[in-house]
């Protein structure tokens, strides 16, 4: 993209809006922003703007719009798909300074917050009212709610309580034209199209999210965790299906395979059985009576379907300890290999044994070990590929292996991303998941909001040209993707 203004002139204009601490342009200052949670991809931004008010954001965006300079919004930078990856020609708009909880309304079960507020900080702030915010991505101590909306983040509790899209009521956005729009309301619906759903998970491509009203839920009377160990991953997978078929929707239902169990146990000593092929962590919550009944039913089902041992947390401390192993699974795996690459495909649960078998075969083929962490209840896989970026070619091998896993998820009837987003990372696999007309529809939709393509360009939805280039290398079962396009 050709900017129509020199960096120096742009800085001059922006320094009329922001104080010098809020405008970073020297390499040593912008370096910390060169990547998000996907550190394998790095670029320096043109400059970093750190506004503190909506008026400043509007003024910055208006200048960028006038001079056709791309804008990339960034929250806490914990995203795992490179959605906030900078570009040399783009302003990186950090929303970190907008970190205030603006209002808590316990009677309406709503809280209104700025985008830079951390996910966990919301639940902490409303706990005094007996309420909490349900979506809990593993990064919840660090990730910001604005980023959660942009990515439609999930977490371990989304089988029962839904994703971000189910748990927000209203947002305010600033359009690329610099207008402030309110989307949704404090009622349960709004006239017109469901733009709240459209904005959620739109990865900073349609507008800048500057305020969020989240829905709060009463803290359940009781929560109880059951851990069941299995000598076979497939048996664990079947047990999940039987629990759900019995009419129980657990608050969380997580699976870890042996490498993940070992890594987590070494790291936090959660009390996991290190010899098990797989463990299931099943959390049940609700009224005291319902939980008691469900704990008995789930324990019986696990036994009936092949669990070799079952442990029920005796108290809250033990419950937290069992979850700690799961929540620390990523960093735990980080201790056993120099680098790891986290995938995020989702599959119909019944295809789990087949997909895990294929991943194991690919692991052998690429000579790269894999640890599997799995939101088993909703079919969201997180295979972690272990590699060493310092070994020449290993990152490239890992990316190729990761791409194969995503293609496997599509083949199984699933999707390339359940909750981490497409960003930069999975952009090529979008060409496999979607047909040309569908991708074009996404582009047309973006055009409705951002006709000049200035918001987070090049992310989330590939151009058809990019797909043509990628497709030339990926001929599946003799069928060329996008045969209607010319090849480059």
């Amino acid at each position, binding site marked *: 993209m050709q900017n129509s203004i020199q960096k120096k002139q742009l800085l001059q204009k922006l320094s009329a809006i922001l104080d010098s601490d809020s405008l970073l342009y020297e390499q040593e200052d912008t370096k910390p922003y060169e990547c998000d949670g996907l550190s394998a991809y790095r670029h320096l931004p043109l400059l970093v703007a750190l506004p503190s008010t909506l008026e400043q954001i509007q003024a910055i965006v208006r200048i960028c719009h006038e001079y056709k300079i791309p804008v990339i919004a960034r929250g806490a930078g914990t995203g795992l798909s490179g959605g906030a990856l900078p570009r040399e020609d783009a302003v990186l708009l950090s929303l970190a300074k907008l970190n205030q909880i603006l209002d808590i309304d316990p*009677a*309406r079960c709503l809280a209104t917050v700025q985008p830079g507020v951390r996910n966990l900080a919301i639940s902490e702030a409303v706990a005094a*009212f*007996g*309420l909490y915010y349900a979506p809990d991505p593993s990064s919840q101590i660090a990730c910001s709610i604005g980023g959660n909306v942009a990515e*439609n983040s999930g977490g371990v509790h989304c089988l029962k309580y*839904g*994703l971000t*899209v189910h748990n927000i009521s209203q947002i305010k956005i600033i359009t690329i034209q610099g*207008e402030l729009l309110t989307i949704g*309301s*404090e*009622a*349960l*619906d709004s*006239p*017109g*199209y*469901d733009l709240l*759903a*459209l904005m959620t*998970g*739109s990865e900073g491509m*349609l507008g800048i999210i500057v305020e969020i009203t989240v829905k709060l839920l*009463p803290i*359940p*009377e009781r929560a109880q965790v059951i851990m069941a160990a299995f000598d076979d991953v497939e048996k664990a997978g079947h047990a999940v299906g*039987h629990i*759900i078929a019995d*009419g*129980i929707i657990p608050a969380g239902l997580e699976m870890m395979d042996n490498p993940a169990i070992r890594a987590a146990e070494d790291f936090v000593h959660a009390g996991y059985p290190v010899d098990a092929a797989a463990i299931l962590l099943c959390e049940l919550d*609700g*009224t005291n*009576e*319902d939980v008691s009944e469900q704990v008995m039913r789930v324990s019986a089902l696990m036994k009936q379907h092949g669990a070799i041992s079952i442990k029920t947390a005796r108290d809250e401390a033990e419950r937290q300890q069992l979850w700690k192993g799961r929540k620390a699974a990523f960093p735990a795996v980080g201790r056993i290999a120099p680098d790891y690459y986290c995938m995020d495909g*989702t599959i*119909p*649960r019944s295809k789990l044994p087949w997909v895990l078998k294929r991943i194991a075969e690919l692991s052998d083929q690429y000579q790269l070990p894999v640890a599997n962490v799995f*939101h088993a*209840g*909703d*079919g*969201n896989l997180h295979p972690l590929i272990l590699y060493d970026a310092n070994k020449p070619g290993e990152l490239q091998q890992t990316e190729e292996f990761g791409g194969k896993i995503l293609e496997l998820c599509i083949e199984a*009837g699933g*999707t*390339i991303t*359940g*909750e*981490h987003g*497409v960003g930069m990372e999975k952009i090529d696999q979008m060409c496999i*998941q*979607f*047909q040309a007309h*569908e991708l074009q*529809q*996404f582009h*047309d*939709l973006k055009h*409705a909001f951002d006709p000049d393509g200035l918001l987070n360009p090049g992310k989330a*939805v590939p151009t058809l040209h990019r797909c043509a280039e990628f497709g030339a290398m990926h001929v599946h079962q003799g069928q060329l993707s996008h045969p209607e396009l010319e090849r480059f």
Partner: protein
Amino acid sequence: MSDQSSLLRDQVVAAQTQQRPLSIRGNNTKSFLGHPCDATILDTSSHSGILHYEPTELVITARAGTLLSDIKQCLDEQQQMLAFEPPSYGEKATLGGTIACNLSGPRRPYTGAARDYVLGCHIINGQGHIMKFGGEVMKNVAGYDVSRLMTGSLGTLGILLDVSLKVIPKPLHELTISKELDGDQALQLMSHWRQTPLPVSAACHNGEQLFFRLSGSEKALKTAHSKIGGERIDNGDHFWQRLNEHQHAFFNSSKKIWRLSLPSTVPMLELDGKTFLDWGGAQRWLVSDIKPDTIRQLVGSVGGHATVYRNNDDQTDSFQPLSLNMLYLHQQIKKAFDPHGLFNPGRMHREI
């Protein structure tokens, strides 16, 4: 039960060539909702059939013309249900119409709306392309959430061909209780219990009495009933169904029936007419002759919006008008899906 998608697509292509707008229709059970549109009828009712249902995956996929009653029955056999408890407004209601209108019943504030359970869909856009968005899995953030955008768009963006929905297990037991209270007292009590982890699954007020429905294990219901108090109602299912289907005597009127969507804690509004509170106070039915502008101004000032749901006249907008900025954005989105303005012109907002 058959696949009519290519026939439907041919009709769209022909309409495009002839520049002839289309009025998408299933079994016409919801013609009262929105403005009538002067266009050739495109009948989707024969594009029907349940395509895939796997109870352990909690997902059902069916063609748009499938009868809602068939879907409910199919789920019922497996002790599952549609969490959003959609009304049918007629025996022949279809899945497509239900999703196009985003219709949800009394359970809505507690378990979510139709849009919350839509996982994916196939559509035909205004250029005659058949496209798939979302899928049959619980979590999917690849691409923009077009399936939810389609939900509630009243057929103005495209033709729904099939829809995949998340389903949930039926509660083990349900219990309905009632208390005599006025509207404001009822609103306070509904809000109070909403903030506690009691298993409330519906709350309404008919002008004189407050009704709560509780869902869960028998023991949990007993405990919750003793906390909330009130009289147990026999045949609770029938009561909620009659409310959901607008068969309650309240809806028997030739005046305009308004649907007010409000933040649930807004006190009773000073509007002449009869009010029935549903959704724990967040959805209020109003039978009234008051001028539409007066209603919309008042409702807008407390953060809500008002729809003329039934018995509208030719002049009044069915839906609360959009702000200029929002209308412009809606027009751009409409253009992105339906550049020739073929689908249901003016059905939702007259300008789109």
